[in-house]
């Protein structure tokens, strides 16, 4: 009746939610070169982990005949990154090691996200006594030094891959919980929540349809940051000899190299390769996580301070710029 015709074509609103979200994500990484670099770095690591058996020149599990010359052999055409204390190819171990680091990183972060998201949502949205109790619990987890606790727990339950994932996940959710709680606290005071209540909606409905969708992007961004912390924790545990002894990981490689004389043998390749791997993945996750967080966390947004220059596209200005 009062309306102008509905815009169609590129602005057609019915182009589908998923595609629009993807397009938004692509444009986000286009605008942020650091995020794009992080994404590429992470993509490369994931690629290496996925196709490790095809990429690695040797099978690390294969039993080989070793002579004294093979131990800590310098990088050569045969072994691009040299060999380790067992005479095995470092490059192959390095490629296979990415699997454990990424698996632990992603799985543990997923656990952290679920626990932290749940605790944060309940504490923020319901508040009251339950919320208080949950936040005090979060505080307790926050003040306990993670590493000693991790060492104690892993030493107690035994260093299997899944135990390590669980321990890292169970100790890493506090930051997520606090952030989600803060967001839920502010969201629940918004008027559309009151409107939903006036519609006859109950708490669970409001939480599911109004609060959660607005918290989720932040949780995802936060989780990517937690991944890097989880990878570091895993490497630390493995380096200290608390890694799963049956799997190859970068932390484990460092541990072997460190304890079995790589330094005195001047076998820098045995230390540098896994070290760089850890830095590579942690840096990638941090770059991606920061980019996502900047885009999703309203507190970190500063659009209004940027891009002022591009705002004016008057003909006179274009002329002046030639």
């Amino acid at each position: 009746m009062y309306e102008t015709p509905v815009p169609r074509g590129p602005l057609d609103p019915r182009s589908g939610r998923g595609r629009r979200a993807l397009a938004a994500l692509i444009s986000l990484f286009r605008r942020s070169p650091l995020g794009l670099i992080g994404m590429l770095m992470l993509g490369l690591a994931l690629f290496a982990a996925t196709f490790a058996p095809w990429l690695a020149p040797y099978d690390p599990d294969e039993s080989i005949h070793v002579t004294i010359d093979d131990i800590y052999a310098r990088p050569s055409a045969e072994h691009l990154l040299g060999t380790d204390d067992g005479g095995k190819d470092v490059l192959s171990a390095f490629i296979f090691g990415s699997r454990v680091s990424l698996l632990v990183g992603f799985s543990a972060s997923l656990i952290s996200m679920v626990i932290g998201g749940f605790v944060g949502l309940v504490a923020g949205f319901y508040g009251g006594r339950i919320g208080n109790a949950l936040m005090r619990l979060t505080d307790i987890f926050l003040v306990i030094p993670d590493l000693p606790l991790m060492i104690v727990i892993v030493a107690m339950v035994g260093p299997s891959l899944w135990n390590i994932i669980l321990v890292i996940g169970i100790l890493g959710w506090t930051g997520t919980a606090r952030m989600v709680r803060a967001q839920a606290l502010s969201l629940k005071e918004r008027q559309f929540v009151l409107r939903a209540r006036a519609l006859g909606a109950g708490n669970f409905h409001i939480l599911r349809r109004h609060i959660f969708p607005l918290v989720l992007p932040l949780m995802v961004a936060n989780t990517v940051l937690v991944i890097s912390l989880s990878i570091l924790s895993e490497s630390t545990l493995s380096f200290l000899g608390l890694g799963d002894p049956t799997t190859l990981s970068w932390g484990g490689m460092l541990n072997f190299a460190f304890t079995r004389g790589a330094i005195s043998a001047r076998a820098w390749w045995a230390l540098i390769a896994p070290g760089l791997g850890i830095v590579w993945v942690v840096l990638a996750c941090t770059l991606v996580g920061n980019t996502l967080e900047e885009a999703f966390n309203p507190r970190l947004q500063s659009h209004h301070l940027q891009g002022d220059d591009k705002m004016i596209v008057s003909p006179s200005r274009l002329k002046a710029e030639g």
Partner: protein
Amino acid sequence: MEIDASPLLDVRHLSTHFVTDEGVFRAVEDLSFQLRRGEFLGLVGESGCGKTTAMLSVLRLLPAAGRIVAGEVRLEGEDILALEAAEMRRVRWRKMSIIFQGAMNALNPVRSVGDQIAEALVLHEMAPTYHQAGKRVAELLELVGIDAARADQYPHQYSGGMRQRAMIAMALACNPQIVIADEPTTALDVMIQAQILELLERLQGELGLAVILVTHDLSVVAEVCHNVLVMYGGVLAEYATVDAIYNEPLHPYTRLLLEAFPDLSRPDARLVSIPGQPPRLNALPAGCRFAPRCPMVIDRCRVEAPPVRQVRPGRWATCHRIDEEGV
């Protein structure tokens, strides 16, 4: 629209307080009014006089510190303040819905408008899924003059007036008998205001709604309302038909309020402002809440709060200075 005699909504002696660290804020005190089928009731008063609080009390949607400390809210004879929370959820929107002030804030920015209208239908089991609610959503949007194809768009893609109309569509989703419109036109420009009011009036006629229009705009009230309730500082100041209020205001506050508004028939008349501030609701004066600003104040006003009295047939007011002959 004929006004039916039996009250649809009967609010009796409603009092709502906010209990905070800074003391008790008596936001609504002893408020009584009735709403009949098809009636357009105007609720007027300056900002912070308890209009919205009164309406949220009726819907039992007060913020955490709010307490309804006395009174009854009878909807078709049943006191809804006595209902269980789950029963109350079924009353909301089916019987009584609300159009919030500021439609932008009342819409979730990350969900499409159609989806949010469908929400009401799904919650009240009038549609099994969000998808199947589509037909009714389209109907509702057309009813308020929005192209149904825009159901999939998000609130930020709507103009201010469209958002407000979408909120009206949402309010009508479950065929309620009562719609509370809480300052539906405040954030809009005059042209859009007129459109929204026209729309409300038309819908009221077509659907036989009873509407409570909360506003501080007296011209809006004069245009559409049957009855007017003037609130001051949380209490009823004057409650009468729109003609009585405009032609023969009795309460000093109503008079000053009308004088503070431009009048087309007397363009040369000076606009009067009411000196002083509205009372602080946690530190109320001992007597009449309006006494400190009242030009007709007498000693009695400062010590004794006037009760709500029927001063004429069908006219209520709280003022010591009003007697049978007038003021």
